[in-house]
């Protein structure tokens, strides 16, 4: 018996699968060509798509660079850093909501609902707009539809956050073949050279999340030994610190509370981010903010900046220590350290990592691109381009069920290689009991209320039996995406037991289905809107041209009827212009076009005569 049987893909065409880094601040899309992963650029040659979604005045939703414009001009019609809201309820994110210019609709306990223009969108729907933009860029590049993707998530994302990311993909019309942890993806890109062996630590500090992963590289196998992190820690927090300082300055210098002015705050945010970036290469810079004719200029030295951000940097160290301990190795066993995420450009972070791991970290790869490149490598593994590589990842958080008195019984421990499973037997406590409710939680604490509630599973239709007689085996499976599924079987009857899942945070399957439909409808509406806008632009052009032509000599050379027809057609177009129907506008454009044809011919003739005047026939 040999493995020849299962890896013979020779005759099948290879799927087009893209790799997507769906970041807090920026997103990228990449693919694997026959040798290496490459980032796909948009029509302007740009690689980075800002993770911003905005509503244009006509209601059309845009994402990326176009949405950045919206954010800087009408901030309450734009959403950024939505990744921080994925898989969350409104009570989880009170602090950030205070800072965001966008509004949250009521009824956001289990899924946050964001008001965007005249629409109300959940975080997966907002993310779906970013994904659609990336999909568009990829489709323009390949000249064919792109429907399959590998998407990266922070390693420390819990089940609800992962599910929300998968939902976003589905809403965007992408089949999410795999969720890959960001630091692991980075290691794939980094260790693409199969000769790389040894133990690697990946320190990933992005816009909103921090991950640390420790991997063992061995003959093309990338085995994650341990991971840890904080899904609420990143460059955003540094920006907020600086904004706070600037706001206080402005309050005393300008005597103005800028917090009430969303446009001002967003422009200040940009100014602060630019200063932060400069401080990575300069020892001193200044926050420069010109607004409504006033200037704010504050010198910022790197030393002061370092003191300010020290507590944030400090918060990354405990997860690092924990990961090393969980990997059952010592710091000295780590051969290499890789930095990922824009925030690792900050010198203090590089120094801190170097002290922590006693190694000079690698910085050869662009920290903004390495995750997307790694996602493309995983796409290559799935499509069969990269057959000699294999990624073995782990679940970042322990999975448990709530037992008597709220104590958590752990079923799958953190850092277990996935897919991982556990089977637990349940029984009834009362004669004839028909259902058993199971509360599944994720986290390391002993008591259920201190962990993250994942879902409640209702085992239903248990055959009537005396108490304690039923034996229901429940199998918990965490798949290769880090997402939980539950199946149950009553042992005596052998009957597959129905399990009804009530996710604690996030969307139900039906809700996602409804959103997919709505998104198709919205796409239709958006398409209609764009068609109308384009038709009106065209109408403006032809009306202006017609008016200009009426001043031309050729106008007088037309017959009375012809002139009347042109006037009628242009009046009709003006009326149709205001109807919300691009087809009507188009029809009247065509009519006016037809009516003005002989006028156009006359003008051409005149123009030709003009051009030829005074010339001999032989000169023509």
């Amino acid at each position, binding site marked *: *018996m*040999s*493995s*020849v*049987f*299962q*890896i013979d*893909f020779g005759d*099948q065409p290879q*799927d087009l699968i893209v790799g997507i880094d769906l970041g807090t601040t920026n997103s990228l899309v990449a693919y694997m060509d026959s040798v290496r992963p490459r980032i796909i650029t948009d029509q302007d040659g740009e690689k980075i798509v800002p993770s911003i979604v905005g509503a244009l005045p006509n209601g059309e939703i845009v994402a990326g660079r176009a949405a950045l414009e919206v954010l800087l001009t009408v901030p309450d019609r734009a959403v950024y850093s939505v990744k921080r809201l994925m898989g969350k309820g409104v009570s989880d994110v009170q602090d950030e909501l205070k800072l965001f210019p966008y509004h949250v609709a009521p009824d956001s306990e289990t899924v946050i609902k964001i008001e965007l223009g005249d629409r109300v969108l959940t975080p997966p729907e907002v993310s779906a707009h970013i994904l659609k933009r990336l999909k568009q860029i990829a489709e323009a590049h390949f000249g064919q539809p792109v429907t399959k993707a590998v998407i990266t998530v922070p390693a420390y994302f819990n089940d609800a956050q992962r599910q929300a990311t998968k939902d976003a993909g589905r809403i965007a019309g992408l089949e999410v*073949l*795999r969720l890959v942890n960001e630091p692991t993806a980075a290691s794939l890109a980094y260790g693409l050279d199969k000769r790389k062996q040894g133990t690697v630590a990946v320190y990933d500090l992005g816009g909103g999340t921090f991950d640390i992963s420790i991997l063992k590289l*061995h*003959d093309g*196998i990338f*085995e994650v030994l341990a991971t840890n992190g904080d899904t609420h820690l990143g460059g955003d927090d540094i920006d907020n610190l600086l904004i706070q300082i600037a706001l206080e300055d402005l309050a005393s210098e300008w005597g103005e509370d800028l917090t009430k002015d969303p446009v001002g705050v967003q422009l200040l945010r940009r100014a602060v981010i630019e200063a932060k970036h400069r401080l990575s290469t300069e020892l001193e810079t200044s926050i420069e903010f010109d607004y409504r004719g006033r200037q704010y200029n504050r010198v910022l030295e790197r030393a002061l900046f370092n003191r300010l951000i020290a507590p944030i940097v400090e918060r990354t160290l405990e997860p690092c220590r924990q990961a090393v301990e969980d990997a059952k190795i010592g710091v000295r066993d780590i051969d290499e350290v890789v930095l990922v995420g824009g925030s690792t450009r900050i010198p203090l972070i590089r120094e801190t990592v170097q002290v922590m791991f006693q190694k000079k970290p690698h910085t050869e790869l662009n920290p903004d691109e390495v995750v997307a490149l790694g996602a493309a490598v995983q796409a290559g*593994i*799935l*499509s*069969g381009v990269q057959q000699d590589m*294999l*990624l*073995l990842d782990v679940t970042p958080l322990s999975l448990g069920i709530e037992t008597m008195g709220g104590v958590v019984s752990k079923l799958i421990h953190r850092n*277990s*290689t*996935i*897919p*991982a*499973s*556990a089977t637990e037997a349940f029984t009834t406590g009362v004669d004839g009991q028909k259902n058993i409710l199971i509360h599944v939680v994720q986290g390391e604490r002993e008591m259920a209320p201190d962990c993250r509630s994942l879902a409640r599973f209702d085992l239903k239709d248990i055959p009537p039996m005396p108490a304690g007689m039923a034996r229901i085996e429940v199998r918990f*499976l965490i*798949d*290769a995406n880090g997402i939980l599924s539950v199946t149950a079987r009553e042992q005596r009857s052998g009957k597959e037991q129905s399990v009804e899942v009530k996710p604690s945070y996030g969307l139900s399957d039906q809700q996602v289905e409804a959103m997919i439909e709505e998104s198709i409808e919205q796409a239709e509406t958006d398409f209609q809107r764009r068609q109308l806008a384009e038709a009106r632009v065209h109408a403006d052009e032809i009306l202006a041209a017609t008016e200009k032509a009426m001043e031309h000599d050729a106008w007088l050379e037309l017959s009375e009827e012809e002139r009347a027809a042109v006037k009628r057609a242009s009046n009709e177009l003006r009326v149709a212009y205001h109807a919300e129907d691009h087809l009507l506008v188009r029809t009247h454009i065509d009519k006016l076009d037809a009516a003005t044809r002989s006028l156009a011919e006359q003008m051409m003739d005149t123009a030709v005569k003009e051009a030829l005047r005074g010339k001999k026939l032989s000169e023509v």
Partner: protein
Amino acid sequence: MILNLCWNCGQPPEGVHFCGHCGSLQAPVVDYFAYLGLPQKLQIDRQDLERRFYELSRRLHPDRFFRRPERERQLSEDATAWLNDAYRTLKDPVARAEYLLGLHGLDKTEQKSSNVPPELLEEVFELNMALEEIRSGDESARPQIEAARKKFAGMLEDLHGSLETCFAEWDGGGRREALEKIYGLLNRRNYLRNLLREAQGAEP
């Protein structure tokens, strides 16, 4: 005995992971040791175990079955979950022993960690007294607790030595007495660990 037939060709598969006739992936039906091609022994070469794990991962992982029909993808997920659970269990000596005991009807869940091993009765009594005093604010019991902690840590170390001896005994003859000794030792180990945790928890 349940007759196990290949889902694809209907013949007995004659292989642990793949059918020997048609080569298709099978659902995992054997114990962790057998799945990794190992005899039921408690002394394991970690490097050999890792090599087996990597080799099987390459063949069984869902990434390798990605372009196969749904049924095979599902089987690959089940097989890999089983492989991962097996590797995680066998790589840790205590989990490995507990698993083997379970295969021989000595379930961990039936161990009662609340039963104080008789030879520890006195120590437990003294520790509880000292803990009580600390809780009521009397720091004079501090050295006693430190002494208890050291004592329990030493006992735990000795116990690990005894465990290794018993592992060798089982591997040498496969006698049930060895398993029962291991069962007793693991029970005592749980108890000691709890005591140690309590003593450490009381440290300033």
